[in-house]
């Protein structure tokens, strides 16, 4: 497998009145051809800003302070606006949580779907419309040709997300970035969308970055997972290793906090006390220390780097933590956090 996308030391912040919001603080990861990488973390941890930074789709208050985003070797942070337009919607397709914000309510679906095909693929209007109708059928919207004349409000939430998927895949991108594409959807529709993306991925070989706050969705779709906290990657692992052998206290906490559809129900959920730190005022030591049951003195003086974990089943399993949590018993407030 070869590396498709290589993100190095990405740092993005927002100018606010009192100073800066440090949204992304030195994030590095690689995406290989054809793989699915999930990015998980709670709201505000920097998932979206990271992804928007890759294609430089940030609001004016944001600035990328450092880093490289190498797409097959070209640094997307250095290329000019024209090249960037070729990348967006061409080599990199994107889907967002709320398709209504990315679809224009006043323009019919056919016109919106044709645009990237005309721009990136040089099709004629007629060719583009024909291809759009095919794409609608491909994502499970029957009667595609007739529906091209309809407007976004005439589609349900799940169907709008299907339209977005069709559009993002229309130019056969190498990478598909899906930012919480199922968060606003009901569980039966979520299952349909997840299945659709998996099917398209398996057929086209596109590499996928799937952003979500829902660990359960990750289990079914990802090859590898990145866990973010306060603008840092705190753990990275192949999906099985992450679920079976999590090493960062935050990952362990998140898993303990999930109620399950099977097994005992009499137990209390383990919780992570407190709440995430203020990104305007981040410490220069471990950002998780105020909530961490494992913390030691060093955690309050130095910020751990993301490094390979001890006795890993896979070389790609890394965590940013000073403590080997397997060697520590912590007091848990319910069903064993450390098991």
């Amino acid at each position, binding site marked *: 497998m070869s590396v498709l996308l290589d993100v190095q030391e990405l740092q993005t912040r927002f100018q606010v009145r009192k100073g800066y919001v440090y949204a992304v603080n030195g994030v590095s990861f690689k995406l290989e051809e054809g793989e699915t990488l999930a990015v998980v973390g709670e709201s505000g941890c920097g998932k979206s800003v990271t992804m928007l930074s890759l294609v430089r789709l940030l609001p004016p208050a944001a600035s990328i302070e450092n880093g490289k985003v190498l797409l097959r070797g070209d640094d997307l942070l250095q290329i000019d606006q024209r090249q960037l337009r070729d990348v967006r919607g061409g080599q990199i397709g994107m889907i967002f949580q709320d398709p209504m914000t990315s679809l224009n309510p006043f323009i019919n679906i056919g016109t919106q779907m044709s645009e990237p095909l005309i721009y990136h693929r040089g099709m004629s209007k007629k060719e583009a419309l024909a291809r759009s109708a095919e794409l609608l059928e491909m994502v499970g919207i029957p009667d595609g040709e007739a529906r091209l004349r309809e407007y976004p409000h005439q589609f349900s939430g799940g169907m709008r997300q299907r339209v977005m998927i069709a559009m993002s895949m229309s130019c056969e991108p190498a990478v598909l970035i899906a930012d919480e594409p199922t968060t606003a959807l009901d569980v039966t529709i979520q299952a349909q969308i997840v299945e659709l993306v998996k099917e398209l991925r398996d057929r086209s070989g596109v590499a996928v970055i799937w952003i979500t*706050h829902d660990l359960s969705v990750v289990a079914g779709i990802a090859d590898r997972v990145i866990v973010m906290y306060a603008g840092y990657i705190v753990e990275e692992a192949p999906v099985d290793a992450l*679920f079976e052998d999590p090493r960062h206290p935050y990952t362990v906490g998140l898993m303990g906090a999930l*109620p399950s559809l099977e097994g005992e129900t009499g137990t209390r959920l383990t919780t992570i006390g407190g709440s995430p730190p203020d990104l305007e005022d981040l410490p220069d030591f471990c950002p998780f220390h105020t909530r961490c049951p494992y913390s030691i003195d060093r955690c309050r003086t130095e910020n751990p780097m993301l490094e390979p974990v001890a006795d890993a089943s896979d070389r790609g399993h890394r965590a940013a933590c000073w403590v080997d949590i397997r060697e520590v018993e912590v007091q848990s407030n319910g069903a064993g956090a450390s098991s």
Partner: protein
Amino acid sequence: MSQSVNGNSEPLVRVENLTKHFSVRIGAYGETKATVHALDDVSFDVQRGETLGLVGESGCGKSTAGLTLLQLHRPTSGKVFFDETEVTGLPDKEMRPLRRRMQIIFQDPYSTLSPRMTIGNAIGEPLWLHELASGQEVQERIAELLDDVGLNPAFAFRYPHEFSGGQRQRVCIARALACEPEFIVCDEPISALDVSIQAQIINLLQDLQEEYHLTYLFIAHDLAVVRHISDRVAVMYLGRVVEMAPKEKLFDNPLHPYTNALLLSVPVPNPRQERQRQHTVIQGNVPSAISPPSGCRFHPRCPLAFEPCDHEVPEWREVESGHWVACHAV
């Protein structure tokens, strides 16, 4: 804590054939009148001390059920009994003392708190409104309630914007508790919160239930959460309850095809299991509540639909002790 549900124990809340329709105007210029069948002929009871979970996809009528049950919506038809008293159609004056005993907590802790009121006053308001405390007692009670929900009593003088989502939800819970209720409708109380905060609130609600012998109607769309917190679970689809059972029965032996489909759609946080499972996802969308399908409302999406399903409404019946279902195939 789990109650027997075969009629021996006494229900705190009983809902009989409860129906709520809304009149709306549709069409580009609102030229057409239409009826939203938000809640149709729903019957269930909630036993004292139990948690009844209410699940279903968005728009299926969960909130409408909660609000109509509390008489915050006027029912179109049907009856609601609270502690043996029929509350449907009760004059305001007689309703007021009952209203104190039935509270609601909403999904969005942001919009339910007034931004210009300190949280101490927000919690204190029901105390003087219902004459539950006076003078010095009020401050003491506020401090006690803050402590009950895991907040520092010194926070009483702060404003809602100074708190996180999870903390605001704690304030809303304290405000509901101030009324010394017996019954609380929890309408998606954790849906707007982050995973790590959700677990805190779930544990808090369970602790308070034990301490104050509360009865909950717990509305949610997350099946794992409902399974964790409930004693019994009711499943709604398009304005109707389609199945209700003790949670073990409902999750281990679902009888209604919709419950089954819903359970199959939920991803599980286990990659090996996810890779193996059959991915028969249910097709299609939830139809509109303006013109719901005839007969069984699930029939256009149901893999088992047969002859009577598109014209005969399946009867709501108890197929085993405590296990209710509405389906022709069961």
